[in-house]
């Protein structure tokens, strides 16, 4: 029963990711006074790409062909570890956040290798940029996770969520800082403005697009889908760790229904927040990303320090 639930939840995760991307696009269009496409447009795009014949560049090796599958599989596996609707999942019990970061790193490594594999200038440039950003974003993310772990005494996601649910509403300075740090990391890692612009093919600014420029057909569909899932993963992480209220703690239909409704609400609100920040901030120069990510790191470190200084239990003599 548990495992069926876990698999169903993972499938729901994968199926809902393009919907979130469609929602983000829609809100963005509204903000820019454009006529929005249908919510289902990302599904149509994926289907169209899937039907097209993929083209293999001449110098491509097996890495180029394997990368989309590895990226997609790693992202799907990562989605399985993050509680979406219900907390107590067997898949969430066997892996913690560090494994999650590891799966992201695996997917990224293959994407970077594939970018360099075909030997075009753009691929190499995108790969080097992606690795630069990742090497700065990963420590910040891990610091935020450790901040969380110091309060919850675990790096396991479902146990951490249970801990937050059990203690109720506590205004923790460390959580506020960790939330800020994780949000900044999420924006950098999913390639949104101000770090990268997902909607552009302008040569000198792109990062993610530069790596996957040679992909077409179903391989491109898989990579696009994987990046949509990754975006949703970060959204669910932020929503369910810091605001876990409403998530189902057992498998009764009412609890599950409430869980689905709450996560839709939370993700919808987070998406609006993301679009608003994208509307307010301009894309920054690539050399300023380092400052941005060191600020994320600073936030996470301050979270860690404020846990020790402000929250820790004191011993009375």
């Amino acid at each position, binding site marked *: 029963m548990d495992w069926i639930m876990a698999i169903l939840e993972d499938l729901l995760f994968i199926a809902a990711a393009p919907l979130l991307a469609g929602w983000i696009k829609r809100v963005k269009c509204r903000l820019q006074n454009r006529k929005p496409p249908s919510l289902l447009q990302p599904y149509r795009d994926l289907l169209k790409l899937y039907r097209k014949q993929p083209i293999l560049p001449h110098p491509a090796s097996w890495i180029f062909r394997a990368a989309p599958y590895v990226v997609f599989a790693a992202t799907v596996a990562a989605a399985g570890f993050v509680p979406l609707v219900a907390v107590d999942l067997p898949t969430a019990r066997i892996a913690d956040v560090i494994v999650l970061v590891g799966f992201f790193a695996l997917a990224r490594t293959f994407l970077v290798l594939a970018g360099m594999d075909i030997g075009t200038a753009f691929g190499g440039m995108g790969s080097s940029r992606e690795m630069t950003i990742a090497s700065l974003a990963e420590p910040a993310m891990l610091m935020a996770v450790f901040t969380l772990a110091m309060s919850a005494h675990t790096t396991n996601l479902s146990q951490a969520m249970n801990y937050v649910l059990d203690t109720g509403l506590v*205004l*923790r*300075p460390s959580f506020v800082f960790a939330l800020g740090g994780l949000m900044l990391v999420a924006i950098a890692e999913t390639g949104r403005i101000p770090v990268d612009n997902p909607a552009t093919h302008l040569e000198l600014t792109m990062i993610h697009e530069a790596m996957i420029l040679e992909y077409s057909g179903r391989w491109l569909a898989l990579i696009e889908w994987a990046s949509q899932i990754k975006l949703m993963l970060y959204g669910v992480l932020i929503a369910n760790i810091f605001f876990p209220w409403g998530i189902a703690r057992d498998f009764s239909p009412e609890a599950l229904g409430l869980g689905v409704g709450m996560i839709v609400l939370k993700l919808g609100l987070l998406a609006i927040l993301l679009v608003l920040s994208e509307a307010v901030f301009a894309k920054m120069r690539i050399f300023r990303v380092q400052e941005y990510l060191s600020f994320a790191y600073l936030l996470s470190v*301050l979270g860690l320090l*404020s846990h020790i*200084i*402000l929250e820790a*239990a*004191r011993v009375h003599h």
Partner: protein
Amino acid sequence: MSITDLDLYSQAILLLAGLIALTSFLMLGQSRLVRLVFIFAVQGALLAGATAMAAGVLDYPHLYISAGLSLLLKGIIIPLLLHRLIHRMGLHREMDTIDHPARLMMGGTALVVFSYYVSLPIVQHSTLVTLNAIAVSLAVVLLGMLLMISRRQAVAHVVGFMSIENGLFFAAVVSTYGMPMVVELGVAFDVLVAAVVFGVFFFQIRASIDSLNVDRLSKLSEAEQ
């Protein structure tokens, strides 16, 4: 006693303490003077919020007065004064150079750890709930000093000085429930007068070296310029 045992208001005081420390770090990393003054105003407002919360939790009505005073002075009047000065001197587009931002931030973090280490013995011998924040107030003082050391613009020095005063005021609120009213009023007006006097000084400095960059003060003769 850990944070889960406290009531929501005391938690909010600790949260505000964390945010005050964050504003100090933001000031340290901000090279535009107008934004620097804005962050200083935010710090003043957060300080006033924390003081008002403390007044509510501890049932010390006179703290409400000092909260209102610090909101008025540090959140509104002094930032407005500085803002007007910056515009009148044509500095609102100028960028102050920060030599090693990453090293500066690491130094700031080290100062936070240091002030925690220093205040640990004090905190351990008390049952006062908000005393955990004393390390933060000490850190705000030290970060204000670091801001003064690392900058060349005289305006940034003044902001650093004012934020040191913020740290001292916060220390007084969290450790002794605020200073006596007379002292507090005196300090508040001293700070206001200081802001005005600094304004006069800016014009003096600019008249003599034609800039507010205090590095130029170390040059003895005008011939080598």
